[in-house]
């Protein structure tokens, strides 16, 4: 029996559908106090005075703390350190003391017995800041560079000098972020021992956060227990260690009371990691037939005011992943990480790949126009072929060597184009628009997944026969409980409904590495697979003793071990758990009790899924509105544990990508005041903006790097949305060059339409220079 590959209903669904999920703000503790963070109203300035007297005297207020009250002024270190960069001067203190560097930076915390009273009192804190000029454009001269990274190989200069064609574009990627629907929340409950804490609300990397917190508080890490909870979406931003992740537990210990903090949406939009904002100047050299000779990209990343836990991971991933699925003989990518007086940046789903894919794939479409080639044909000419894989790039990323491990890139491109034609994308794009001009766009990308170095899983069978999995991953909505249950059930010959998964409890699984970087199924799942196989061997070993049979005569299926040819001689997993219980006569002298196993799965290299996105858009040149009419994702995942969940990840990623490409943008005014602090200004896409998404899910290239053959699925839905939609808009408008900037807001689209108003008005209703080209390449 295999349950891998089955579209099983999710184990998480019943509780979530009944309102029985337990999210951050659903936890409370007797005697709990509430906290409200007082944040800087200025983008940049010197803190002259914080007058907290009135706030302290307000009704219901227990304490107000500022940086002066902290034991030492702790700063939050980098989690993902990249060799060769020293960011120690740019780290964020948990409370600003002398200088504030962005609107929303924590200055003080008000603690009281009621959240409404805390919010009232927070407004009574007198803040006197001598404003300094705010740096809001990372391209200003001279830039405040926190780090500069270069990745590459070969001699791009020589290649450009010898090229038949050189094509260069600029593309700016807007500032947006994950924006999970549940704001952050944290409850810290002191225990009986000094320093003992129960924490509710940390996700993503709970063990790392626990260890960091223990170090900052100066307590043993096992005194702190981070509990597994439901999280209302992660997307990279939730669960990193923020200032509040120190402040709330520290206050709980200092005050000797449970302290709870629940941010509001305005806080979230200016306090949680922003992402994406980059300026690309990307160029490619081609020979006369359109083969890439070299690729260069010079990037400025607007990193905001500080370097947070991700350090320079996003810019590093951008330059490391930039060559994508193509044969690039020479490459140089440089990125300068520039500090500005805006919210600091971190990772957001497909960090660096959304941005780099947009720049590279938009460049290829512009190049196809310049070279007079079909965009699909240009890509086919340059894709690494199956026989060229595995392909080692002399680039490292996140401390690992980049080896594009497996697959058939040209075959997936052919399949995707064929699917788009079959589904009528070509006809739709060529047809007359109802409210504007239509266009088709396509983009190809390589993702990365399964980052190591390890994940640990415990699998244990209880006396009832239930199988318990304790994973270091965390439940963020991705369905990890369902996926790991399927993996354990498959290895153990058990019913997946009998498997209970606990994900992200630091006491139940103290060696977990967390859920991020599309690693949970690949690395976490492989650890569960190995632990469950070990439990299976243990069950057979014990059954052989109980049944007095030879191990090789035993089968385990359906949660039962039986003697082959003698079905009456059988034992359930529950029977065997009892046979392994302490004081069981079946245990040998000195043998540990329990039907359980712990396994650690190690990986030294990531695995690289890949995909193709295709979009049909309609651009209203009068209003500037872009509607995505159809969207296709073709994705190679190696092996899908539960295809329904993989498709869900891809569809959800597309929706977020469309948001970042057309709607979502953190803008600032000239003083550095954020202009998007509610969902009125920060425009998440609704069902009205998201079309049905077609998915072509391929399982043709199992990963060689793990026993399940799986590759990650968390990010492939978003990686190429900026690229595909930008290419489709360019096609619709018949632009000769780049769209220039994402998101493609109505004002920018109107400006683009105006820039080609002359030729367009005299041209065909739908289509410019490359209209119809992408899908007419004859690959179907």
């Amino acid at each position: 029996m295999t349950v891998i590959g089955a579209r099983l209903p999710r184990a998480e669904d019943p509780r979530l559908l009944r309102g029985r999920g337990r999210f951050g703000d659903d936890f409370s503790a007797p005697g709990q106090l509430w906290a409200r963070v007082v944040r800087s109203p200025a983008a940049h300035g010197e803190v002259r005075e914080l007058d907290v007297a009135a706030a302290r005297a307000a009704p219901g207020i227990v304490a107000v703390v500022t940086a002066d009250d902290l034991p030492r002024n702790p700063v939050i270190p980098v989690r993902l350190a990249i060799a060769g960069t020293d960011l120690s001067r740019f780290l964020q203190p948990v409370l600003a003391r002398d200088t504030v560097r962005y609107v929303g930076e924590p200055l003080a915390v008000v603690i009281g017995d009621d959240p409404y009273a805390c919010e009232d009192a927070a407004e009574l804190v007198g803040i006197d800041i001598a404003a300094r000029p705010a740096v809001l454009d990372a391209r200003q001269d001279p830039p405040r560079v926190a780090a500069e990274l270069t990745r590459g190989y070969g001699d791009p200069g020589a290649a450009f000098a010898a090229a038949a064609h050189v094509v260069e574009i600029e593309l700016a990627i807007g500032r947006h972020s994950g924006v999970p629907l549940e704001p952050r929340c944290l409850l810290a409950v002191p225990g009986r021992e000094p320093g003992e804490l129960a924490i509710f609300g940390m996700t993503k990397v709970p063990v790392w956060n626990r260890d960091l917190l223990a170090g900052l508080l100066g307590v043993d890490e096992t005194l702190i227990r981070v509990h597994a909870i439901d999280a209302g979406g992660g997307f990279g931003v939730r669960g990193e260690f923020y200032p509040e992740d120190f402040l709330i537990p520290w206050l709980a210990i200092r005050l000797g009371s449970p302290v709870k903090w629940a941010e509001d949406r305005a806080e979230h939009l200016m306090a949680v990691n922003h992402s994406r904002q980059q300026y690309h100047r990307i160029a490619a050299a081609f020979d006369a037939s359109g083969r890439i000779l070299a690729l260069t990209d010079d990037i400025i990343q607007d990193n905001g005011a500080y370097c947070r836990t991700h350090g320079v991971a996003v810019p590093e991933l951008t330059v490391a992943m930039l060559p994508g699925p193509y044969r690039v003989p020479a490459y140089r990518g440089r990125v300068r990480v520039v500090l500005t007086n805006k919210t600091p940046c971190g990772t957001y789903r497909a960090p660096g790949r959304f941005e780099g894919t947009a720049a590279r794939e938009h460049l290829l479409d512009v190049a196809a126009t310049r070279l007079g080639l079909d965009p699909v044909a240009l890509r086919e000419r340059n894709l690494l072929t199956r026989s060229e894989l595995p392909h080692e790039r002399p680039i490292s990323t996140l401390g690992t060597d980049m080896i594009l491990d497996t697959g058939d890139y040209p075959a997936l491109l052919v399949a995707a184009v064929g699917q788009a034609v079959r589904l009528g994308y070509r006809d739709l794009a060529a047809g007359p628009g109802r409210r504007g001009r239509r266009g088709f766009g396509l983009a190809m990308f390589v993702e990365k997944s399964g980052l190591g170095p390890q994940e640990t899983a415990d699998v244990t069978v209880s006396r009832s026969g239930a199988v318990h999995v304790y994973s270091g991953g965390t439940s963020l909505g991705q369905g990890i409980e369902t996926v790991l249950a399927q993996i354990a059930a498959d290895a153990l010959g058990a019913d997946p409904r009998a498997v209970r998964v606990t994900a992200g409890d630091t006491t139940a699984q103290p060696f977990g590495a967390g859920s991020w970087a599309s690693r949970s199924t690949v690395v976490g799942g492989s650890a569960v697979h190995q632990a469950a196989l070990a439990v299976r061997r243990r069950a057979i070993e014990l059954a052989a003793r109980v049944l007095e049979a030879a191990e090789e005569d035993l089968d385990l299926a359906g949660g039962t071990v039986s003697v082959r040819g003698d079905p009456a001689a059988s034992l359930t997993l529950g029977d065997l758990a009892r046979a392994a219980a302490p004081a069981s006569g079946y245990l040998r002298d000195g043998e540990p009790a329990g039907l359980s196993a712990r396994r650690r799965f190690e990986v030294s290299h990531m695995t690289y899924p890949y995909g193709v996105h295709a979009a049909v858009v309609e651009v209203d040149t009068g209003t500037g509105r872009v509607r995505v009419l159809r969207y296709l994702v073709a994705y190679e995942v190696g092996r899908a544990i539960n295809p329904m969940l993989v498709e869900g990840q891809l569809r959800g990623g597309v929706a977020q990508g469309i948001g970042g490409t057309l709607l979502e943008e953190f803008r600032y005014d000239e003083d550095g005041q954020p202009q998007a602090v509610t969902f009125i200004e920060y425009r998440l896409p609704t069902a009205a903006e998201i079309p049905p998404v077609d998915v072509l899910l391929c399982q043709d290239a199992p990963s060689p790097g793990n026993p399940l053959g799986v590759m990650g699925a968390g990010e492939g839905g978003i990686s190429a949305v900026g690229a595909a939609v930008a290419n489709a808009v360019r096609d619709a408008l018949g632009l000769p060059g780049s769209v220039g900037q994402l998101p493609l807001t109505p004002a920018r689209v109107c400006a683009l339409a105006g820039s080609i108003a002359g030729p367009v008005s005299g041209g065909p209703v739908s289509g410019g220079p490359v209209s119809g080209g992408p899908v007419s390449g004859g690959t179907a």
Partner: protein
Amino acid sequence: MSTHTISLRVNGQEHQLTVEDRRTLADMLRHDLGYTGTHLGCEHGICGACTVLLDGQPVRACLVFGVQADRAEVRTVEGLADGEQLSDLQQAFSDHHALQCGFCTPGFLMLAEAYLAENGTEALTEEQARELVASNLCRCTGYQGIVEAIVATARARRK
């Protein structure tokens, strides 16, 4: 800050309590009465995660004061299932993978429940369902499963 003593029924259960006049219905349901299935995603009436039925009408519980529910009948997500049995709409959400993190889900369920109760005898096209669903925000699913689940429930209820 003045307070008021009010009484209301939540999912058929009688409650009497004293609340500050400025306390929102959402905070009252969640923190005073323990109905934590109603979620707060924005507290300014855009996301719809806190949608509950107030005398049968869907409202944003973050934009309604608790005192406005005096003598009212409130229905929350906890009131949808029949014991351990999911409602047809809840089951359809699971069948169509209409939820991932599940944080927005109670709001979509209550919104759809109100719509179907009012318009249950009429056919629901996908376009109409999409328009309905566009009043709330989901960050995980891309909405496709939500639309499909509501259309399927409407179809099944008409039979």
